[in-house]
């Protein structure tokens, strides 16, 4: 019998500082497997820093991060990353299919070129994100939502257990947002863990089942019904979200001031 499953991600005492300003302070976080987790917090709360620390892109000043019970370096293949759409130059001379195949580069290893298998995997992932017709398209011709779905497809071909996504809904229209959410929920149903940096407090309860509230320190984390409370939000956003209802939904539909 296998030992009881280790959590998807276990962060202990994580502290990250840029020069002398702390971006994350003593953060503990346990993410169980097969949840859809929203990382929520005001600007500068360290949401992206948290994601990048888990991925080893930022060297923390202190702390330990375990992925499925082992250090990230040994578990790289289990983790896929969807960076912010604006982090790359979309005028780069390449095609949609080519970008998606980049998700297979890690598994391919050095020097070997992507071949038919990679091609087929990439086309399948593009089909899942509804971008199959765009495979041959130059990436500069894509809209924001299409760019996001290409990045998503690139993560899908990694066939990972844990997906880390930095604001996948930024600049995406409502239809695309719903399509992406359905895809993420499907991933969770397959037993995969999806961690999403999210900006829109209105949709947290609707889209996600777990949440972590962050403001340099971890304010709260857990199932949405328990952790996504007005008191916790007030702590995270500094009392500027008074209009939020009891279950975290806003009656006004307005964005919180802290997120402007």
């Amino acid at each position: 019998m296998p030992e009881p499953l280790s959590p998807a991600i276990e962060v202990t005492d994580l502290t990250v500082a840029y020069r002398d300003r702390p971006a994350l302070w003593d953060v503990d976080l346990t993410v169980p497997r097969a949840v859809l987790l929203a990382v929520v917090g005001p600007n500068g709360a360290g949401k992206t820093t948290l994601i990048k620390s888990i991925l080893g892109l930022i060297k923390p000043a202190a702390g330990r991060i375990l992925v499925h019970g082992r250090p990230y370096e040994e578990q790289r293949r289990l983790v896929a990353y969807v960076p912010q759409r604006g982090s790359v130059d979309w005028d780069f001379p390449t095609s949609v299919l080519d970008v998606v195949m980049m998700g297979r580069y890690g598994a391919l290893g050095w020097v070997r070129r992507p071949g038919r298998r990679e091609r087929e995997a990439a086309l399948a992932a593009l089909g899942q994100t509804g971008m199959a017709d765009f495979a041959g398209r130059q990436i500069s011709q894509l809209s924001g939502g299409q760019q996001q779905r290409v990045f998503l497809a690139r993560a899908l071909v990694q066939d990972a257990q844990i997906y880390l996504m930095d604001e996948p809904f930024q600049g995406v229209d409502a239809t695309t947002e719903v399509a992406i959410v359905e895809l993420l929920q499907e991933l969770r149903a397959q037993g995969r863990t999806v961690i999403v940096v999210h900006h829109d407090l209105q949709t947290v309860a609707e889209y996600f089942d777990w949440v972590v509230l962050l403001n340099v320190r971890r304010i709260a984390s857990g199932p949405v019904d328990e952790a996504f409370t007005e008191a916790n939000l007030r702590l995270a956003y500094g009392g500027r979200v008074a209009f939020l209802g009891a279950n975290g939904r806003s009656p006004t539909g307005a964005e919180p001031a802290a997120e402007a």
Partner: protein
Amino acid sequence: MLASVFGDLFTDHTVRTVALGAGTLGIVSGALGTFAVLRRQSLLGDAISHAALPGIALAYMLTGSKAPLVLVLGAAVAGWVGTLLVMSIVRSTRVKYDTALGLVLSVFFGVGLVLLTFIQRRPDASQAGLDKFLFGQAASLLDRDLVVMASLGAVALGGTFVLWKEFKLLTFDPDFAGTLGLPVRLLDVLLTGLLVLAIVVGLQTVGVVLMSAMVVAPAAAARQWTDRLGTMTCLGALFGAVAGVSGALVSSEASRLPTGPTIVLCAGAVVLSSLLLAPNRGLVWRWSRDRRSRRRLAVSAVLADLDTLAAEHGSLGRTHPVAVLETMRSGAAAVERSLERLEERGWARRDEEGEWGITEAGREEAGRRFGGTETAGADA
């Protein structure tokens, strides 16, 4: 003259050497320049080439030799040190990238000039010739120079070929490359190292002052013509070779022009024609596309006006003076020409008095385009 130049290409040994050397440097810098341009490191090439000058001078002072391998290695080491200095200044201080580049470039170049002057004051006669590295001199290329250039160039091109997919990912999305477990820092150092090689290959021919143009210009021109990285790299190499060979031949044959500036002028011509003529991205292409679509829109708008008029008057038979239509287009000048275009297609007709009306076919076309404007008149 041109014929004699090409004739010499096959008979004259010096001319052939010059052409081969310039071609090699063009291919290598054009190919590696693709990555430099896409990584927004165009100016890094400038810093590297200027930083190479003291390396050349020091190599000569230390060894007393002017063997091409010695000088080129000196250049490569100095260029490499300059690059590392830029990177560490950016990492460890608050100085910005462009400022660091400017500092390293000018300080190294200054040191190089001082050393060159110092060498030239020395009594021994062997000092002559190092100053050709300033503006380049293709005519001074010898067979042994070619061997060094070709081998270093082969290393640069071979490295790019072998690590193609890694370099591509590094250039497009380094963070993602890092999450796949690629050693991003090492790849960055490697790719920059290959760029240093590509630059020192061309120094003797083009000179330190203008070598960066050979990194930037062919790649910038190539980007205009294609949306594929592989094609762009090959085109960059081709453009580099064309500019290198033509510039070197002109300078060595015609009038003892300094080679660097002549090659760079040729590269400039390639860039200019690419900026103007390339499909999709070229200025002429865009300009004519904009013009075409503006004209189409104007014709379409006049057709809509005719349709509206016909709907308002409830008859096809009515015709209207051009002035009416011009007023509806708030006095746009091209209304008459648009009307003539509509007439060519049979969507509008002109009566004997020169007034205009819509035809049956025109109404159908308007219905297709604007979807039932019949009611528009009733609404208005």
